[in-house]
């Protein structure tokens, strides 16, 4: 502790400067492009099925549609993932869990809401037990359909990739 104190005193704000330099470098054009390209092709959705659209989500990860070719690999733990896929309706009970999962994910993180229920409740719009994902989470891409076809899931992934590679989504601030 003392050493660190001494270090700070001797070297000024070295740590802060280093962070600033890193941020400048990462946001600079060639490295930034590589960074965004890397993020766009390693979208790992967390394994968090919220409702029945999970059936079509599972089908989109299966051989016929194979979204893994976009670097889209459903993964187990929320701490290793950067994409939260809201698969259909979010009930009040599940909404709490969705917020916990989202908070555990490391930056940069994205949310895709799947299905009509993910947009405005869909066929369950007047149910007493649902919440709308956009009220509690920052959703980047919505997929319409009830349930959306696996092709639509693939398209949503490509749309998110484009957004990321345009540099709209990821902002590093140290």
């Amino acid at each position, binding site marked *: 502790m003392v050493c660190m104190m001494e270090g700070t005193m001797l070297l000024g704000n070295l740590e802060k400067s280093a962070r600033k330099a890193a941020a400048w470098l990462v946001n600079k054009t060639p490295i930034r492009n590589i960074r965004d390209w890397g993020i766009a092709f390693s979208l790992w959705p967390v394994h968090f099925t919220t409702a029945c659209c999970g059936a079509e989500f599972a089908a989109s990860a299966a051989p016929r549609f194979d979204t893994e070719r976009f670097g889209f690999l459903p993964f187990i733990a929320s701490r290793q993932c950067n994409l939260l896929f809201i698969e259909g309706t979010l009930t009040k009970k599940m909404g709490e869990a969705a917020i916990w999962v989202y908070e555990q994910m490391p930056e940069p993180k994205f949310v895709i809401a799947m299905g009509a229920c993910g947009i405005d409740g869909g066929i369950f719009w007047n149910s007493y*037990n649902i919440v709308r994902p956009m009220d509690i989470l920052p959703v980047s891409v919505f997929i319409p359909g009830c349930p959306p076809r696996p092709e639509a899931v693939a398209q949503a992934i490509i749309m998110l990739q484009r957004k990321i590679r345009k540099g709209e989504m990821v902002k590093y601030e140290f």
Partner: protein
Amino acid sequence: MNFEELKAKIESELGDLGAEVSGREPNVIDIKVDKEKIVEAAKRLKSMGFDHVKAVTAVDFPKERFEVIYHASSYSDLELAYFIVNLRTSLPYDDPKMPTLLEVWPSVLYQEQEEYDLMGILFEGHPRMERLLLPETYEGIPPLRKEFKVKTEGINV
């Protein structure tokens, strides 16, 4: 065993409990009993071979009564399996309480809990009178009652 025979048999078995037996062709038999005698009626039905409950339905008639219906049938006797027995009872509206049938039919465990959760009917003796489907923090009118209103579309197409 055909419909009439089974109906007559149930009538003779449950007659002394004051049960009203009616039926709908071809395979549904309705039995109406008081809530004090429902456990005994269920026991007798079980000894006849109706060994499981398919569903427990509670129906709300506002300001009047609640009706709880046990749809029982058989797995062990495939001849009886064709029939569905609706064991029904009425509960007063302001105090919907009835004894649980868990001892007789263990298959009602979650069904009765759901009716408590969504309709607010208290099954006395049931070990899990707590929330099942709704969030634990839910308070207010049980949602399946008629006085609980949900939004509806305004346009009459």
